[in-house]
């Protein structure tokens, strides 16, 4: 039995409370409990659930929620989502460091002492600018390609996800202009001002966690509100039956583009957050496997379902970040073996995706709607009867 109205209204307040509670717990854990714990507890938490990994997890949740708009809501396949992560990261690199030294601009910025040249804009504005810039790129890439059938769309996005990071890898000399500092990347990034009283540098992971959580909560809210409104219905209608949607007055191009733009915006947010998290932007980190991991988060979590996608992001980013390594170490020491577990990462994610596609296409925590769609034989969209 589907009770959609309950999804939007009653759970709205509940999720906010649950989310805040979880974030508060983690903050207290990392800020107070762990530092004041005996060494073994400290080592255990930092080994298996380090706060660096938790922050990265938040980045992945933001990214996955963004991709969920494109893939889960609107049903458009995107295999190059990492491109937006990269672009968002570089926007942070350009606007929050001394890298563009020809300029000296400071808009509520927070440059570290001695690094005042370059552009320094406050983190919150950079978030919006990066999101907007990525949304623009989403539209640029989407406008010519969204007319294509989904297979071709997948190919084009795949190419986009390959090309953009390559541009940054090779971008230290574009007609004499240094766009990206090549493989050396851009670092350091300006510290974030924590509500005006503290600079958050590379080691303030716990306070940064609070800020990232706020952004993540914002993205959850965006996902839920858009879903329950006019645009969300149009996205789902397109996912369900594109032709019928257009004949009910839904403009296909514009609606698909808006899904792309919103997804890309979230990708940009994730990029900025990640840049401040690792205190830099490094082109080589943006590779295809990231697009696939994020896609796996959306697919595994149950396409379209915000909570499922969040769980998918948490689990997979943990496996990808430290889980596999730690499990491997444990196994290696226990059985006295010497297996390089993290090197099986792709094998695991790849097999997982394939197995999911075969046996549980709707993900582990599916929305009822996706479950039904996925197990239905593909409808023939060509001939309208």
């Amino acid at each position, binding site marked *: 039995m589907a009770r959609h109205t309950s999804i939007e209204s009653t759970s709205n307040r509940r999720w906010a409370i649950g989310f805040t509670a979880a974030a508060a717990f983690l903050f207290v854990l990392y800020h107070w409990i762990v530092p004041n714990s005996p060494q073994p507890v400290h080592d255990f938490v930092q080994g298996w659930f380090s706060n660096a990994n938790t922050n990265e997890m938040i980045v992945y949740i933001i990214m996955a929620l963004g991709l969920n708009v494109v893939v889960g809501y609107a049903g458009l396949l995107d295999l190059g989502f990492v491109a937006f992560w990269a672009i968002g990261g570089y926007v942070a690199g350009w606007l929050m460091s001394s890298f563009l030294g020809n300029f000296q601009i400071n808009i509520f910025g927070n440059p570290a002492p001695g690094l005042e040249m370059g552009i320094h804009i406050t983190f919150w504005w950079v978030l919006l600018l990066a999101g907007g810039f990525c949304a623009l790129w989403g539209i640029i890439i989407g406008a010519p390609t969204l007319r294509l059938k989904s297979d071709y769309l997948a190919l084009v996005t795949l190419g986009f996800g390959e090309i953009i990071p390559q541009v940054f890898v090779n971008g230290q000399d574009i007609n004499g202009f240094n766009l990206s500092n090549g493989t050396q990347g851009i670092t350091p990034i300006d510290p974030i001002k924590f509500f005006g009283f503290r600079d958050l540098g590379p080691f303030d992971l716990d306070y940064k966690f609070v800020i990232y959580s706020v952004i993540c909560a914002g993205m959850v809210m965006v996902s839920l509100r858009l879903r329950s409104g006019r645009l969300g219905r149009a996205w789902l209608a397109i996912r369900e039956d594109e032709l*019928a949607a257009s004949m009910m007055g839904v403009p296909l191009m514009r609606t698909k583009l808006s899904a792309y733009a919103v997804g890309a915006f979230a990708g940009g947010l994730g990029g900025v957050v990640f840049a401040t998290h690792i205190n830099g932007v490094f082109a080589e980190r943006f590779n295809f496997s990231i697009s696939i991991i994020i896609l796996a988060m959306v697919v595994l979590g149950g396409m379209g379902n915000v909570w499922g996608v969040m769980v998918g992001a948490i689990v997979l980013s943990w496996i990808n970040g430290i889980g596999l390594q730690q499990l491997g170490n444990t196994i290696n020491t226990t059985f006295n073996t010497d297996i390089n577990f993290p090197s099986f990462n792709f094998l695991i994610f790849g097999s997982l995706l394939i197995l999911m596609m075969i046996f549980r296409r709707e993900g582990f925590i599916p929305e009822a709607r996706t479950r039904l769609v996925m197990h239905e034989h593909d409808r023939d969209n060509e001939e*309208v009867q």
Partner: protein
Amino acid sequence: MANALQADAITVQFGGLVAVNDVSFSVPEGGIVSLIGPNGAGKTTFFNVLTGLYKPTSGVVRLGDEIITARPPHIIAKHGLARTFQNIRLFGLMTAEENVMVAMHSHMRSGILRTLLKTPHQRREEAQAHARARELLDYVGVGRYASEYARNLPYGDQRRLEVARALALQPKVLLLDEPTAGMNPQESAAFVEFVRRVREEMHVSILLIEHDMSVVMRVSERITVLDQGQKIAEGTPDEIKSDARVIEAYLGKSGVEGGR
């Protein structure tokens, strides 16, 4: 009388196959007219041209005074041409209510920002859309399924839901493609009444494709007969009933009258 919808000399070719051949046709304002013909006659193809899905090889379609030939489907829909589908095409995994609300898209304004900010305008618009959707669901008699996924509805109710969704577009002309397919005689009889009621209360002109002759003869003011893409007859039910070419098309060639 003015025509709500007028199609002039429509021809549609698929490669070598001429699915619709030089067919002219009109729906008078406030009228109920039918398009009939044996299987494969080109009826659905004709609908697809009217609704902008197919570009006709030649010919012009007018909705009111507006030329809508080959304009994008969503524009045509917005201008007031709504349809149902021969094979039901609901948004299966959206609720019945949401299905109806999708069709209100072009009459609503709220974009991304208003939705995110939940502005008073957006909330009012949503509330109105919800209320209107409930009304329409009740109107066609599937109100109790409002929160149910469309694909979980019984077959006949899915057809009703399609009508509700089409009405949500506030159409001037409503195209129904075999709306009684799969209905039993009682349901079909009730449907005839329903179509008349919709015409009166929703102020729409109705064009239906129908195989069930008892429905066609009772509900239509005028009937057009297609056979192999050609218009072979046009007239009142009585004229059509006694038209030799129609009888031949139905009985002589394929004998599929009352088929599905």
